[in-house]
């Protein structure tokens, strides 16, 4: 599968010269055990301030868990999380929610909520628990809906929205928290290609205003096209991290995903573009990627079986 990578290539040093900027997200020796199994195993990762970081890795690598640990939704069994030089893991839950927002992969409500009410929930950590939302909160909710291109949905019922509209509203809810660190769990899931590109372009614009964003992504081409910094997780460990061009190599993808990837150059944006094919049965490596598309579907079942 190939995706038209849309974002122009960043400056060559993107993600490599954080010295001038304040520190962004930093985790140190983060680990987490679930049912006796180590799900996150000593993760050290750094996303520079005001950058879009992508967490990639196969199913079960711990991407969502890592985001949940950073958000404080799960409590780790050890390690630290900080943003902008401030420790988050020792902060109160409410103080943390003023800095970090999490846009979940699946967000659903059985209540008959209006879209505005759903976005106003994002104001919860900023307002008194005993008063209703004020005029400020309404103004911020309206602005966040406008930012995500969902202003005209404001009076709709959340339950009547399409998948793409919901993703926008969920993003608006996270932005209404006025976070300095935005975590996105599969923000492009269930979106058509245009909505995928729009969503990541929006997040990428937000990072230009000083927001640090971290997105767990399945689609490596989206990561290659939009991320400033890529972190590769496998079995709960960081196996590589850095600028997309240096991380997304044929060797790494074979090692982590067990498939062959041809790394091409996008003709218009100049960013990395990956074409995948299944590894041949003898795992001998270098084959040509020309018949990749045809071969992938045919061998996928065999590989996974």
């Amino acid at each position: 599968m190939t995706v038209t990578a849309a974002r122009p290539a960043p400056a060559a040093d993107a993600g490599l010269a954080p010295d001038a900027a304040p520190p962004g997200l930093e985790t140190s020796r983060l680990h987490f055990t679930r049912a006796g199994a180590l799900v996150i195993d000593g993760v050290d990762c750094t996303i520079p301030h005001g950058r879009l970081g992508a967490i990639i890795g196969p199913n079960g690598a711990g991407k969502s868990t890592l985001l949940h640990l950073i958000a404080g939704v799960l409590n780790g069994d050890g390690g630290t999380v900080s943003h902008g030089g401030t420790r988050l893991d020792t902060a109160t839950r409410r103080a943390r929610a003023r800095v970090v927002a999490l846009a979940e992969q699946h967000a659903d409500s059985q209540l008959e909520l209006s879209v505005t009410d759903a976005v106003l929930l994002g104001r919860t950590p900023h307002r008194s628990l005993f008063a209703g939302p004020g005029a400020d909160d309404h103004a911020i909710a309206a602005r966040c809906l406008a930012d995500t291109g969902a202003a005209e949905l404001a009076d709709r019922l959340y339950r009547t929205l399409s998948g793409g509209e919901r993703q926008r509203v969920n993003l608006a809810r996270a932005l209404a928290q006025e976070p300095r660190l935005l975590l996105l769990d599969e923000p492009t899931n269930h979106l058509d290609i245009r909505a995928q590109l729009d969503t990541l372009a929006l997040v990428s614009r937000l990072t230009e205003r000083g927001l640090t964003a971290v997105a767990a992504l399945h689609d490596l081409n989206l990561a290659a096209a939009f991320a400033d910094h890529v972190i590769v997780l496998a079995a709960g460990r960081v196996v590589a991290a850095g600028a997309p061009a240096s991380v997304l190599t044929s060797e790494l993808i074979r090692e982590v995903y067990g498939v062959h990837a041809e790394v091409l150059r996008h003709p218009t944006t100049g960013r990395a573009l990956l074409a995948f094919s299944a590894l041949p049965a003898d795992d001998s490596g270098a084959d040509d990627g020309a018949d990749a598309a045809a071969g992938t579907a045919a061998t996928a079942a065999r590989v996974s079986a």
Partner: protein
Amino acid sequence: MASPAPAAPPAETARLVVPGAPNDKSRSLGARGRRPRGRGQRGRSGVVAAVLGLALAASVLLAIAIGPADLSPAEVLASVLHHLGLGGLFGLEPLSPLRDGIVWELRLPRVLTAAAVGAGLALCGTVMQALMRNPLADPYLLGLSSGASLGAVSVIVLGAAIALPVAAFLGALLALGATLLLAGGGGLSPSRTILGGLAVSAIFGALTSLVIFWSATGDSYREILNWLLGSLAGARWPAVVIAGTALLVIGLPLLFSGTVLDAFAFGDTAASALGIPVTRVRWLLLGATALLTGALVAVSGAIGFVGLVLPHAVRLLVSRGGAGPGHQALLPLSALAGAIFLVWMDTGARTLFDPRELPVGILTAIVGGPVFALIMLRNRRVG
């Protein structure tokens, strides 16, 4: 910009999502697509609260007057004012001792108990539905009421009536724990929770019946019915004190949990990411509902469906273009509506087949059962 795609205004994509297309996750249920007209939700809730408050006061006066003694609401008011020491102020004639006794010793405490129990059960239902994200959650369906009945009946048998509310609370807590355990701990699926509640209700209901049957000296069948279906026939001032105190001490603080309950709209993870200490809040609030249910069941038996029906009725009443009110409005409105509802249900229970008493739970089930079915049909996603 090399490619136009990401530069296009995102608003256009929102329109590109075609309803019914594979990426359209909208549900046809409740997807009426109507747009709420304007705001003013809070103003509307305020008006509804005022109307319900007046309706409750009127209901109490009227309900006391209804019955065999042919009392008028004016007489009821006169009796109440005299007892409050305000009779002279309005130049009212005192009632004859017999009629005054009917008002002050029998009907007023019964009606006040009904109001307190109704308000409390409706509050419990609202809180449980929000915390469990389950539109069918209610103290009766989840077995809390049966557990409380068993606790209450057990201490009555043991002759320790002083400990009645405490035992009922412990019973409710035990039942809640058992239901949650059966439902599977963390990710509470609504239907598993209801099934767990069903099992727990059956067991605790049967044990309650056994204890009564084993110990009863008089009409054990009536006793069993009163505990299992609920009855306010025996409610006198001590019942008002128990139910009223529970409502003030536990119910009143619950009214302030609205913002926290709202944060659960998208589930535990979302609530936690909004800064809510989910686990602590859940146990605190569920513990409070068990405590409140225990105190209420101790004076009324297990009256069903009040906690289930009222929050939904209020949502319909206050909804604008289909969007329901937030919990800050829903909690007090449900409590008021629950009080009015149970006052009239109990009035029906004691007058419909006069001089025989109907257990009030039969009437609440006649209203509540169909509502339960309706919610199930409307909300097929509960699964």
